[in-house]
C-alpha cells in the first residue's frame, strides 16, 4: 500500500510541477493571497491580546486620551492598585487547587468506569451505558437552582466540595475511556494479571492505567481547561471573596474598578498569561486531541 501511495504521490507532484511552470504568475498571486488571508486572520486573533498587554502598562489618563502602540512604564502602579482591592493571586491559587483536584478525580473515575464498561459483562451493563450517554444531552444549567438548594441543605455552601465532587461523574470521560479500553487494552494482559494473582483493582492500577496514559493525558488537558474556565457554579456556591477562583475575580475586577482601566487591564493580563504559557507547551497535544475527538464524533 505505502509503496503504491508514494508512486501515486510522485506522479501527482510531477504533474503539479508541470502546471506550476505553465501558470507561474497566477499561482504566485494565488499563494500570496492565501498567505495574506492567513496572516490577516492570525493578526486578528492576536491583536486584542497585544493591545491588552500594551494598555496595561499605561496611566489611566493616557489610556483615555491616546491610541497606545508601544509599552509604557506604569504596569507596577496599575498592578498595585489592583491587588490592594482584588486578591488576584489568591484567586489564581484557588483555581489551581480546584482544577488539579477535580481533574485528578475526573480522570481516575472516568478511567475506572470506562474500564468497567469495556472489559466486564454484568447484568444491565448496556442499559447503564445508555443512561451515561443520555446524561450527556442534559444542558448544564437545568439543575442549577436545585443544586444550590441541595448544597445549602448539605451545609456545603461556601466550600469547595460542590465544585470538586461532581467531577467524579463525567459522562463524556467515561465514553472516551471506554473507547480507549476497547481498542488498546487486550484481554490477554488482564488474564496474565489474574494468573499472577492480582486482585481486580490491582490489575486496574498496575496494568490498565499505565496503558491508558495517552488517553488520560488527552482527556486531562480538556478537563483542565474546562474546569479552569468554570464560572457559574463557583459564583453561586462561594460567598467569600477570598475563596473565589480566577474567572470570578476577573468579574469582580470589572464591577469594582469601573473607571480604573489600567487596573482592569492588569487583571485580564494576569488571567491570560498562564493560559498562554500552558498553551504554548501543549498546543500540539490539544490540537491533535480535538482532531481525534472530531473524527470519532
Amino acid at each position: 500500500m505505502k509503496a503504491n501511495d508514494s508512486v501515486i504521490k510522485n506522479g501527482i507532484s510531477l504533474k503539479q510541477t508541470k502546471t506550476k511552470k505553465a501558470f507561474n504568475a497566477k499561482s504566485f498571486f494565488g499563494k500570496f493571497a492565501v498567505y495574506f488571508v492567513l496572516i490577516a486572520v492570525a493578526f486578528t486573533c492576536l491583536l486584542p491580546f497585544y493591545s491588552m498587554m500594551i494598555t496595561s502598562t499605561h496611566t489611566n489618563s493616557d489610556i483615555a486620551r491616546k491610541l497606545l502602540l508601544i509599552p509604557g512604564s506604569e504596569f507596577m502602579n496599575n498592578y498595585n492598585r489592583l491587588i490592594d482591592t482584588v486578591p488576584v493571586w489568591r484567586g489564581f491559587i484557588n483555581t489551581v487547587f480546584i482544577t488539579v483536584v477535580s481533574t485528578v478525580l475526573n480522570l481516575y473515575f472516568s478511567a475506572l468506569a470506562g474500564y468497567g464498561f469495556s472489559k466486564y459483562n454484568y447484568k444491565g451493563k448496556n442499559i447503564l451505558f445508555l443512561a451515561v450517554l443520555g446524561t450527556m444531552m442534559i444542558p448544564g444549567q437545568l439543575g442549577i437552582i436545585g443544586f444550590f438548594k441541595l448544597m445549602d441543605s448539605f451545609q456545603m455552601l461556601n466550600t469547595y466540595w460542590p465544585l470538586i465532587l461532581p467531577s467524579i461523574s463525567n459522562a463524556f470521560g467515561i465514553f472516551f475511556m471506554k473507547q480507549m479500553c476497547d481498542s488498546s487494552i487486550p484481554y490477554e494482559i488482564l488474564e496474565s494479571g489474574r494468573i499472577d494473582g492480582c486482585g481486580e483493582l490491582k490489575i486496574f492500577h498496575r496494568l490498565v492505567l499505565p496503558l491508558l496514559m495517552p488517553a488520560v493525558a488527552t482527556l486531562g488537558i480538556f478537563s483542565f481547561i474546562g474546569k479552569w474556565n468554570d464560572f457559574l457554579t463557583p459564583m453561586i456556591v462561594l460567598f467569600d471573596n477570598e475563596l473565589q477562583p480566577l474567572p470570578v475575580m476577573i468579574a469582580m475586577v470589572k464591577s469594582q474598578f469601573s473607571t480604573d482601566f489600567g487596573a482592569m487591564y492588569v487583571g485580564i493580563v494576569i488571567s491570560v498569561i498562564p493560559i498562554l504559557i500552558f498553551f504554548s507547551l501543549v498546543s500540539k497535544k490539544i490540537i491533535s486531541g480535538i482532531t481525534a475527538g472530531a473524527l470519532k464524533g
Partner: protein
Amino acid sequence: MRNSSINKSRYGFYFVLPYFIVFLVFGLTPILFSLYLSFTKWDGFSDPVWVGLDNYARLFKDTYFFKSIGNTLIIWIMSIVPQLILALALAMILNEKFIKGKHFFRAVFYFPNIVTPVTLGVLFSLMFDWQTGSVNKFLMAIGLVDDPVYWFNSPWLSRIIVAGVIMWQYFGFNMLVFIAGLQSIPEELYEAAQVDGATKWDMATQITLPLLKPVLLFTFITSVIGGLQLFDAPLMLGNGPDNSTLTMVMYLFQTAFQQFDYSYGAAIAYAIFVIVLFFSLISMKFSNMKKVEE
C-alpha cells in the same frame, strides 16, 4: 464467553458505581429538585410554598423572557453563520499541501478558544468602550470615523459585538474539526478528479463539501446546543440598551441569583431546557442526523 471474566463480572459493576452514585446526588437530584421548586414560591430564606403552575403562567406573560429568547437566537445566528464559513475556508486552505507553518496558524487560530470567556468579555467591553476603548482610537486614527462610536448605546451594534466575540472565540475550534473531516476524505477521489480534468472549484463543490456534510451537521447541531446557552462572555458585556443583549441564561442567572427569585428561576431553567430540546430536535430532523450517525 470467557470463564475468568464471567466470575469477575461484579467488579465491573463496582467500577461504574461511583459515577452513578455521584450523578444521582449531584446531577439527577438537583434536576428533579429544580422541577419541584419551579412549582413553589421560594426566596432562599423562608421555606418553599407550593403554588402550582403560577411560575409557568407568569413565564408566558413575561416579555423580558421572550425578548431574551429572541436575543439569544439573533446573536447565535449572527455568530454561527460567519463562524462556519470562515472556519471552513480556513480549514480548506490549511489542508493544502503547499502551505508552510500549518501548525503555527492552527495554534494561533485556536488560541482564543481556551481563554476564559469572562476574560474575553471584560477585554472586549474595554476595547469597545465609548471614550477610552482602543477600537474607537484606532478608527479615529485611520480616519474612518470623526467622533467615537457609542457601541453599547445601539441595540444592533451591541448584538454584533457580542456575536463577534463569540465567533472570534469559536471559529478556531470548528476549523480544527473541519480539518479532521477533510483529512478523512480519501486522496484517491481528488486524484481521479484531477485525471478527469476537474478544477479546484469543481473539486471543492463536488467532492469536499458533499463528503464533509456529516461533519458540518455535527458542528451545526453542537453549536445549537452551545449557542442557546450563551452566558459568561455576554454577561461581562452587559445587558445592552433596552436589554438587547440579554440572553436566556443571563436572565435565569439574574432572576435567581441577583433578584433571589429562585423558584421563578427554576421555571425559566425548565423553559430553556424545552427550547434547547426543541431546536436540537428540529435541527436533527432537518439534517437527518440519525442517518448520518450510522
